[in-house]
């Protein structure tokens, strides 16, 4: 197991290397000139050349990348072209807020998703099932912007149950987290429903029922653990998709997180910030996947992960 974990961590580092390389390459290829951006519109050609040289943008691509990598190893993510502050400081100041929203959002997703999925599976083919599945799908099919604006409009403006955006305590957190949870839960409820139906039909469940165990006990002890197995890798997968939703939700609710930082950096082609955010999200996603892979064997002993 230790060997396996070491191996996976080594892979994770390689993947991180790959991610940073591809991001850097993609941004290098974008037709925009950062030196011009910094120098402003009144700059002379000489000033621009000077800035380009200071930033090392006159070097060939591989040298620029190696330089970036060298700094990265020392924990230096570079300085923002637009904000002129350390990328690490910019990300650091927003990391807490994003982690908070992510944790709350994923918790909402899971609670809503698993509860609805279970209910739908148990009431399979009833009106409740159809209603819940339609609901889950409407959630999945709604653009984040619209859902966020709608919830904000109804619950903050009309009903005044929540503050209208901004950063703060639980009351500020709830609405954006619910937005993310509602829209993201569709995947989980569908997944839980279908895997639960499958599990319910398997022989060992019938055996358990035949042994005289109560319905509730069978569901909680036997069906649920088996049914949520596919949900676990989904969480890892979800973090990447989640980031996309975060960008929109954070900017609608004025939540000062990384999503908002990324969105502003993308609009301004602030390359060090974009690479930094990508790298940080990549770390989050890789850790998520790694944990998912490590947890599966404990829940579903039929899978021997060391073979994969």
């Amino acid at each position, binding site marked *: 197991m230790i060997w396996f974990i070491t191996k996976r961590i080594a892979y994770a580092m390689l993947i991180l290397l790959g991610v940073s390389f591809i991001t850097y390459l993609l941004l290098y290829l974008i037709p925009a000139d950062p030196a011009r951006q910094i*120098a*402003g519109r*009144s700059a*002379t050609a000489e000033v621009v050349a000077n800035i380009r040289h*200071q930033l090392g943008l006159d070097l060939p691509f591989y040298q620029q990348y190696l330089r970036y990598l060298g700094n990265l190893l020392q924990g230096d993510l570079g300085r923002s072209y*637009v*904000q002129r502050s350390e990328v690490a400081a910019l990300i650091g100041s927003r990391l807490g807020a994003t982690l908070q929203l992510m944790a709350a959002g994923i918790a909402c997703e899971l609670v809503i998703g698993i509860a609805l999925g279970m209910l739908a599976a148990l009431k399979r083919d009833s009106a409740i099932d159809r209603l819940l599945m339609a609901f889950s799908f409407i959630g999945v099919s709604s653009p984040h912007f619209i859902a966020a604006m709608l919830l904000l409009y109804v619950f903050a403006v009309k009903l005044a149950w929540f503050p209208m955006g901004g950063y703060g305590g639980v009351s500020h957190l709830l609405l954006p987290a619910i937005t993310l949870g509602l829209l993201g839960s569709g995947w989980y409820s569908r997944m839980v429903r279908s895997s639960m139906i499958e599990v319910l039909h398997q022989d060992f469940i019938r055996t358990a029922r035949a042994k005289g165990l109560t319905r509730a006990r069978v569901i909680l002890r036997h069906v649920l653990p088996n049914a949520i197995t596919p949900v676990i890798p989904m969480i890892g997968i979800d973090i990447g998709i989640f980031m996309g939703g975060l960008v929109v939700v954070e900017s609608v609710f004025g939540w000062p997180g990384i999503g908002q930082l990324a969105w502003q950096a993308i609009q301004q082609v602030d390359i060090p910030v974009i690479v930094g955010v990508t790298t940080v999200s990549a770390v989050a996603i890789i850790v998520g996947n790694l944990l998912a892979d490590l947890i599966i064997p404990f829940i579903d002993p039929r899978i021997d992960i060391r073979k994969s």
Partner: protein
Amino acid sequence: MKATITKLALSVAVASLTLAGVAQADDAPKAGGDIVVTYQNDVATLDPAIGYDWQNWSMIKSLFDGLMDYKPGTTELVPDLAESYTISDDGKTYTFKLRHGVKFHNGREMKASDVKYSLERTVNPKTQSPGAGFFSSIVGFDDLASDKSDQLRGVTTPDDYTVQITLSAPDATFLHVMALNFASVVPKEAVDKWGADFGKHPVGTGAYKLADWALGQRLEFVKNSDYYKPGIPYLDKIDFEIGQEPTVALMRLERGEVDIAGDGVPPARFLQFKNDPQHQKLMVTGDQLQTGYLTMNVTMAPLDDVKVRQAINMAINKDRIVRIINGRAKPANQPLPPAMPGYDKSYQGYPYDVDKAKALLAEAGHPNGFDTELYVMNTDPQPRIAQAIQQDLANIGIHAEIKSLAQANVIAAGGDKDQAPLVWSGGMAWIADFPDPSNFWGPILGCEGAVSGGWNWAWYCNEKLDAEAQKADAMVAPEQQQARAELWGKIFTDAMVDAPWVPIFNEQRFTVHSARMGGSDALYVDPVHVPVNYDYIWVK
């Protein structure tokens, strides 16, 4: 047809603005009070040598001072940290007498050496200031800009309260340049202490001090009780909340949680604010030194034919474009905005005349039109405006494919000699750095801007007009100003004969503030302290 100039002096230019505030002028300003201001985008930096954004421009003006400034709410130049100034007869030497006893936020008195240091810091390439180029007329600029020296030879300090600046050529805009944020006075010891992070720990002489900054969330400005102007500022504290979506900010403003929505009114709410009397009271309208234009690359066929460019000028229905943006602008017929000295009120421009445009196009040898590309920035409403232009061009047979890209990509394409035939400037349009026509020429219509990576996306280079421009900028004496404005006006209308642009509209500015805010309306749409002059507003 001889052009006559009606707007003569700077102070007249925005007289309409000051008039708007008369109604409120009776009630005297009250000291005290805290307010909340919101912006959507992050405040990048408060370093006066670097900050160049919508949201930080007037914040920096409230934290720092320069030798010159403008009368609040107007474009009238007045001395600020300078008590007085004199200009030599040849127009090359400016001597500023500094105020005594002006203190930095750290308690030290501001001296002449600080002025010299600050200018040198901005020009020094290591600072990477986007404003360095403005100071190119100072003697010794080239040496400092190219790392050959670490001083500006042209700036000297005969004593602690005198600064003498020598220019390599007379420059009528120099006093405006000294009023730019980039000429703000900073204390060397604070810059040395914070290095590249000075922009996060600003120390100036201004009306407010930065008390707290939670990156990406909020900034807190508090009153500088040692400010050299007695009684100023009126407010005790300003809370800037960052990352607020404009629509949400407006909702909060209506609920009394926000006092100024810094990003103005989003399009969807604009008509509501304009037409509802309750909302109307909260919205202030002002002119902007801005023109939205379509550039036509004069080096690319078939746009290299002046007839084709004139045809395009006649093909575009500017009234309809203004309607599309809900009348938030006024149609334009020349590069200069109406509030700018030199604007020619009698100039008619090209009429909207589709038949004549078609005829011109046929004359130029394109009776069936041609295919081309229209570059545009990809944030609303720019792509919509581009589609309106596209339809107008289609009416005379020109098929323009829209390239809707990120701002940086459009700027890069425009600065590439043979890439972008047509560029709609919206979102990147020239907003004057200071209220002088010369700022509207060099970089965007003069030969100096028609270089790779430049901002002259029409690649228009008329050496004769450039020479005229030089002549106009050498007219520094106060009594020459009327003639200078006239000359500038003629340069721009003469350029329109070659039609490198289609000037489309002059955008207006709308600020929304809560009912409890006091002070003349002009302060909320200050043409220089963009967007709001925080020093002079107050709470009722």
